[in-house]
């Protein structure tokens, strides 16, 4: 087997294994039982996908009837055309700024720096990304086709008429298959052309994007019957271009339009192969290895790596020294946290704090116990995860953190205190807002918030520290709050809130505050002791 084929097929097998592992299928297992399981999976998912598609189709039929009761098929063609248009313009824009052919660091060494045939590489690398991009269009085409079936087929749909129904989904799928293939190949051809002979033709975007936008917008406008009457000849052109979709959805000559689409697809693919001859694989690898690493990290749930890449991009290269006044001893950790927080303040972090605020509003507004428990549970999860962000960051730099001449208690306190203060302030602000909107003030709940927040922060820190392993910390790998940590958080919150709500009056208030502070002190001690033992 050619080396390029070998490497790519290994990658495709790995990709396949990843998806099969989600349904617990082991491809290496050749036993009869495993093969039967595969058959079962195939039947199960075939039925499940069909049921899901029909479910979405019934919703789609309702929308179509509302949008255009007399010409639903025209709406369907316009929707599909618009989606293809937007996707094509975006794809072309992407291709004009980054190589569409994505290589990993390993590919860069094994493929890109070798004199392999560039045409073979691009054609072999094409299949998987095309399939991934096509699936969404296939699904939408089938759903829209089924939606038309729901409107067009009279009477009750039974199992005996399922083939009629299926034909409505199959035709659009057949129509869009070569069409989308051609558009995808064209995007790749443009991207590959940009990086021919190692010269980056950035100017290509200024020509291709406006042209593509003009093309698709014109096509969309002309496909509208009311507007196209005054542009009869142009309408013919528009009809010709959108004919594959029209044939798929409205019942034109499907075979001839599929043949025409296939010709378009082959021309685009040929163009891509033609441009690939002098495609600079090294430039493509330079542009994409980080994208590939990010995609792999996201796929396997390594969010910290993706986060790190985003932070690096955001920080840039250099920064003038901070003017924050010096804080000595454990205060240096707070100094560092302030600096980090200022430099990494991102929308998703603000949204996390906002969600905590709205959960606190909900806690004070919700009248029934069931919803209250749910809101408190979400509050616990969110508060626990936010509380240990700084601690996890410090643990990930274990040689620096471990060598600080600060006691474990002070270290932990400095890492948890700033977030704890924000947590208490935001939660109290949320609850006070809730009481302003509707309910009377709940001083009993306000008073337990500091102890509750400290307990949740403490138990989350304990969970993270207890699961930390020094050999993993040395390579920067820190665990997140586990299910055990969350469950312990629920338990603590339940005990404290239960005492505050059930025992009325001053004794209840006194008991719950005392309980929350006691638990906070206890779990903080546990966490500090665990820190010594990492």
């Amino acid at each position, binding site marked *: 087997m050619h080396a390029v084929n070998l490497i790519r097929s290994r990658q495709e097998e790995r990709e396949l294994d990843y998806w099969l592992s989600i349904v617990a299928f082991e491809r290496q297992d050749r036993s009869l039982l495993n093969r039967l399981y595969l058959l079962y999976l195939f039947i199960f998912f075939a039925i499940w996908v069909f049921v899901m598609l029909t479910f979405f189709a019934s919703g789609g039929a309702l929308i179509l009837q509302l949008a255009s009761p007399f010409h639903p098929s025209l709406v369907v063609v316009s929707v599909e055309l618009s989606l293809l248009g937007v996707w094509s313009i975006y794809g072309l824009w992407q291709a004009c700024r980054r190589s569409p052919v994505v290589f990993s660091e390993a590919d860069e060494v094994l493929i890109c720096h070798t004199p392999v045939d560039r045409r073979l590489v691009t054609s072999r690398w094409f299949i998987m990304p095309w399939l991934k991009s096509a699936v969404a269009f296939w699904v939408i085409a089938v759903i829209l086709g089924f939606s038309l079936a729901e409107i067009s087929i009279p009477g009750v749909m039974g199992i005996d008429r399922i083939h009629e129904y299926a034909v409505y989904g199959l035709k659009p799928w057949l129509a869009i298959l070569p069409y989308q293939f051609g558009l995808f190949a064209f995007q790749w051809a443009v991207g590959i052309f940009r990086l021919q002979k190692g010269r980056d033709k950035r100017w290509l975007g200024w020509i291709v994007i406006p042209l593509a936008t003009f093309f698709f917008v014109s096509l969309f406008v002309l496909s509208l019957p009311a507007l196209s009457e005054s542009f009869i000849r142009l309408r013919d052109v528009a009809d010709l271009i959108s004919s594959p979709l029209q044939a798929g959805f409205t019942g034109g000559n499907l075979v001839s339009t599929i043949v025409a689409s296939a010709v378009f697809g082959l021309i685009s693919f040929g163009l891509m192969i033609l441009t690939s001859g002098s495609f600079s694989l090294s430039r493509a690898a330079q542009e994409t290895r980080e994208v590939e690493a990010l995609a792999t990290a996201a796929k396997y749930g390594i969010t910290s790596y993706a986060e*790190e890449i985003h932070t*690096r991009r955001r920080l840039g290269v*250099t920064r003038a020294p901070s003017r924050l006044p010096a804080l000595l001893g454990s205060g*240096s950790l707070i100094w*560092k946290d302030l600096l980090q927080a200022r*430099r990494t303040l991102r929308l998703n972090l603000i949204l996390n704090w906002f969600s905590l605020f709205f959960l606190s509003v909900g806690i004070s507004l919700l009248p029934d116990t069931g919803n209250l428990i749910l809101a408190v549970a979400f509050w616990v999860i969110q508060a626990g995860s936010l509380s240990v962000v700084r601690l996890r960051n410090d643990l990930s730099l274990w*040689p620096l953190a471990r060598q600080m001449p600060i006691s474990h208690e002070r270290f932990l306190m400095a890492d948890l205190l700033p977030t704890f203060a924000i947590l208490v302030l935001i939660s109290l602000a949320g609850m006070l807002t809730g009481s302003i909107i509707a309910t009377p003030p709940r001083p009993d709940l306000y008073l337990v918030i500091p102890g509750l927040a400290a307990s949740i922060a403490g138990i989350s820190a304990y969970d993270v520290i207890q699961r930390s392993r020094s050999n993993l910390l040395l390579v920067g790998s820190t665990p997140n709050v586990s299910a055990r940590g969350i469950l312990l958080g629920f338990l603590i919150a339940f005990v404290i809130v239960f005492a505050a709500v059930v025992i009325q009056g001053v004794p209840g208030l006194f008991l719950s505050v005392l309980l929350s502070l006691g638990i906070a002190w206890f779990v903080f001690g546990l966490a500090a002791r665990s820190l010594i033992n990492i």
Partner: protein
Amino acid sequence: MFLRNSVGIKGITLTQALAVNDLSKAYDSFQALAPVTFGLNSSEITILSGPNGSGKTTLLSCISGLIRPTTGTVSVAGFDLYRDEVEVRRRMVFIPDVPRFYLELTAWEHLRFVAMANNAMENFDQRAEKLFRKWSLWEARNLFPHHFSRGMRLKLGLLLALIRPFEVLLLDEPTSALDTESVELMTEELRALRRNGTTILLSSHDTNLIEQLGDRYMFIHGGIVEGA
């Protein structure tokens, strides 16, 4: 060459700058470091050498407390690593072979942070500038260290140690990524530290460094330390 001036179990005294007693590390059934006992004196440079994967980094990590040993104790100037951790941290510093840094702090801010944590802010600006200039990092002081080369990271790691006071210095392959000029500088720095009474334990494959600096030598192979 090895076993010169070696100190055995009976040689350990309470006044020794660094005392390691019965220290070992095992990962499940794999013995990464066999039990070892030794003591190091002030104004002494001990060089630890051995093939790749022999356990040099494991030994240094256990002594510095970055990895919890399976058995044994470590004490610095009579203070136990785990019982009197703050006292030990004030006196001992470890520089890993590939130091890692905070993403959000520049090189200058890292120095400031370490100086603040160690209450060593007296004349900070002057001292930091002198160090940055000496180690040719002055132009890079406002850069984020993730843009540094490996050699620059190693130098910054050393600067983080030099900005604060210490009595015992542990270094893991300190010259592995340095250019010839920087190796010279490192040799001079280590000599100066020895003159000032610092105890130094470093791992290295650099034969020049081993011959020029070593007062004592330890060899490690398959987790077993010889010459201790």
